[in-house]
């Protein structure tokens, strides 16, 4: 039962990474979009793609956190104590990102809009980085079973820092790939080219950083490396293949399926980590999935909650994404688009707002639905396998 809940937790982390991670990546591209005039088109596309869905995606984090502390309270307490600093910094980033994003929408004065936008964009960079260091610290066994004090060394090891950078690059990659498809669906050619270049860059960066992390692990933690290249090898290879496939597809031009492949690549990395570590929860300690402080009844309750989530939450998400994909959401409540302020002040026509989507573009939402379905099926299938 502990294994099942461990798989649920990993599935939740995967969903947060491929859905919430992309929202962080959007903030990253917002940060790098340049001056107000030059960055207007990409910022608008990012804004419209993220707005209705980011809160739903964000809840995966809460869900994961709750599963973690309920199913593995001892490990949770140790992680929260030993890695308090990077977790606090990530939380700070989450606060600034959410409020910055929400405020930017309602503000019309450009200078204030810039401040709120900067808070949103900068924290989109910091949050995944610190989350990456936390995962890196756990994976390298830097969290003791009975941590009573925060440790700086735990999350500033080369592996943990590299993990932080990998997270940032992966978020950027996911977001750029999703935005390529989004731009394609809107018939916005310049933006499609714009994000294709960025997706390629991020893919190369994420790949290089992942390889660097792998080599670093080989030196610093041979045992973990052996498991990564042992039983987790298929997943590691899958991640690499997905990255290369996306790179090839982006270069060749077709956008069909690139989102699913990108998400699958990121999912493979996360499951590779999980499989390499299984059944140990905190490496280099005796804490495993079954002895981290929860009872059988708790595990059963969590499995029931997870099943309820599949029944209630998955169709709701499907509805949200389907409506978002058909561009049924957006435009604000007042009958003016959210970015209306900047619109009027510049007076320039915007490609992103040009036309409602032609019916021929509809299959895009189907692809998105299939991608989500695949992730869900993969998650459910995975959940069964470790037992």
């Amino acid at each position, binding site marked *: 039962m502990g294994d099942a809940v461990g798989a649920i937790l990993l599935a939740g982390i995967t969903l947060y990474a491929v859905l919430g991670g992309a929202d962080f990546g959007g903030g990253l591209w917002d940060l790098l979009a340049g001056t107000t005039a030059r960055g207007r088109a990409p910022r608008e596309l990012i804004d419209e793609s993220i707005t209705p869905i980011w809160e739903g995606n964000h809840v995966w984090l809460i869900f994961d956190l709750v599963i973690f502390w*309920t199913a593995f309270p001892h490990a949770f*307490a140790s992680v929260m104590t030993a890695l308090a600093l990077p977790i606090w910094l990530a*939380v700070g980033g989450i606060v600034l990102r959410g409020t910055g994003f929400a405020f930017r929408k309602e503000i019309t004065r450009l200078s204030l809009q810039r401040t709120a936008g900067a808070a949103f964009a900068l924290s989109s960079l910091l949050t995944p980085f610190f989350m990456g260091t936390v995962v890196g610290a756990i994976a390298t066994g830097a969290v003791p079973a009975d941590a009573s004090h925060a440790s700086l060394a735990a999350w500033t090891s080369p592996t943990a820092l590299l993990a932080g950078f990998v997270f940032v690059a992966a978020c950027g990659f996911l977001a750029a790939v999703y935005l390529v498809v989004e731009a394609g669906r809107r018939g916005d050619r310049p933006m499609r080219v714009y994000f294709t270049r960025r997706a390629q860059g991020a893919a190369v960066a994420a790949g290089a950083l992942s390889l660097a992390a792998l080599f670093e692990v080989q030196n610093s933690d041979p045992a973990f490396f052996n498991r990564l290249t042992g039983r987790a090898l298929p997943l590691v290879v899958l991640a690499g293949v997905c990255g290369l496939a996306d790179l090839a597809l982006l270069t060749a031009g077709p956008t069909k399926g690139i989102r699913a492949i990108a998400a699958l690549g990121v999912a493979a990395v996360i499951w590779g980590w999980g499989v390499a570590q299984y059944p140990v929860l905190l490496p280099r300690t005796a804490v495993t999935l079954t002895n981290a402080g929860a009872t059988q009844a708790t595990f059963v309750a969590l499995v029931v909650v997870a099943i309820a989530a599949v029944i209630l939450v998955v169709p*709701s998400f499907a509805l949200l994404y389907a409506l978002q994909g058909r561009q049924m959401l957006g435009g604000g409540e007042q009958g003016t688009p959210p970015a209306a302020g900047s619109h009027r002040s510049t007076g320039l026509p915007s490609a992103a707002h040009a036309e409602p989507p032609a019916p021929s573009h509809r299959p895009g939402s189907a692809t998105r639905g299939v991608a989500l379905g695949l992730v869900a099926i993969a998650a459910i299938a995975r959940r069964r396998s470790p037992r």
Partner: protein
Amino acid sequence: MHANGMMLLAAAQESTQDVPARAQMATTLGFHIILACFGIAFPSIVLLAEFIGLRRGNQTAMRLARRWSQVMGVLVAVGAVTGTVLSFEMGLLWPGLMRQYGSVLGVPFGVEGLFFFLEAIFAGIYLWGWRRLPGWAHWWSGMPIAVSGIFGAISVIAVNAWMNTPGGFTEKNGQITSVDVWQVFFPRSAIYEMPHMVLAAYMVAGFGVASVYAVGILRGRRDRYHYTGFALGFIPAAILTPFQIFVGDTAARAIAHDQPVKFAAMEYVPQTSRQVPEWLAGVYVNGHVYAGIKIPYLDSLLVGFGPGTKVIGWDSVSPADRPPVVWLIHLSFDVMVGLGSLLLLVGLWAAWTGWRRRRWPRPLLFWALGAVSGLAAIVAMECGWVVTEEGRQPWVVYGLQTTAQAATTNGGVLASLGIVIVVYGVIGVATIAILLMLSRRWRRDDRDDDSVPYGPPSAVADRAASQVES
């Protein structure tokens, strides 16, 4: 099982960080709970407005619903992130609590997660679906937000109720050995804590909305728009107020039984005795109540409907197990009850005039009271939280774990507390500033609408907007 032994050792440690950790929890929870109230209850009020707009073709109600939904967007976003902070603080500030009882109190939180999902997903659809979803489909897309807001609140309150009256698990040698999920979700105090908080949320949101429009009316904007806005917030809140007072009264009696030390602090009962007087206001220092009004026998009467009722005092436990700041608990309790009663009177006033004269009361005093009713509801709700949280001290899980045992052993909580106060201060000011800015923008829009004397105002605005767009 060496590791387990070590864990026990860590769990038994007492932290020196419990006071700053409590201050930080109080700050972040006290801030978030206001947003949470709007998250729980505001969607229902917006849906009520949209319902009236759709059913009766009431353009004013429709316009209010659209504008409120923009306010909701801001509040939901800020609430989502401040709620996230609290989730993390459960581990960052209270690792001792989570290590020991995470597997017990986590279950209701898991259920809450489900409702939070539905809330966030359908908020995305409702808030951003105004333009392209057909009327009633849009209205129904808001329904899950309102329903899951209530059930999410119930799930979180289940945790707090469990901390007050823990049960539903067995503990052997410091290890949790079995959990009865049902009992954890519905501990003894749940039956009064859950409705008390949900009603409080509706009062905060309802009176909060009403007070915005009462201010407008006081400033001379006596138009249909302002009266409708006031009514949509005030009427539901005023209707629920008597129920809240009934629930609160029941809760107090149950607390006298379930958490007698908390009750003793609420009512200044030093010794277990009969014919206990009721103190209104007053500060308890060294065995004396200063500046308080004493009503003989009333406390015994309230607890057991007879002056001879025995009330348990705080002398029933050793001084170390008593809440440290008794006067704060008592005064918070009195303020909460006082403000609740005031809100009841305001509601009765409106009901009387409405019944006799078919209109709102005219006196300025009524609108002045209406203008402060939102703040009063917020203060009352915050005071209630002070009572229940301060009153449980020194325990985090009543009778089982002290707050000091639960608190983090990491230093530096003072630093994070300072940062939290600054950041939340900025967010609070920015949120209010943005809501005021929206209100100014809408007033400007209304003036522009007036310059187009015929034709439905919202349609004109829509057309103008789409022209700007394309």
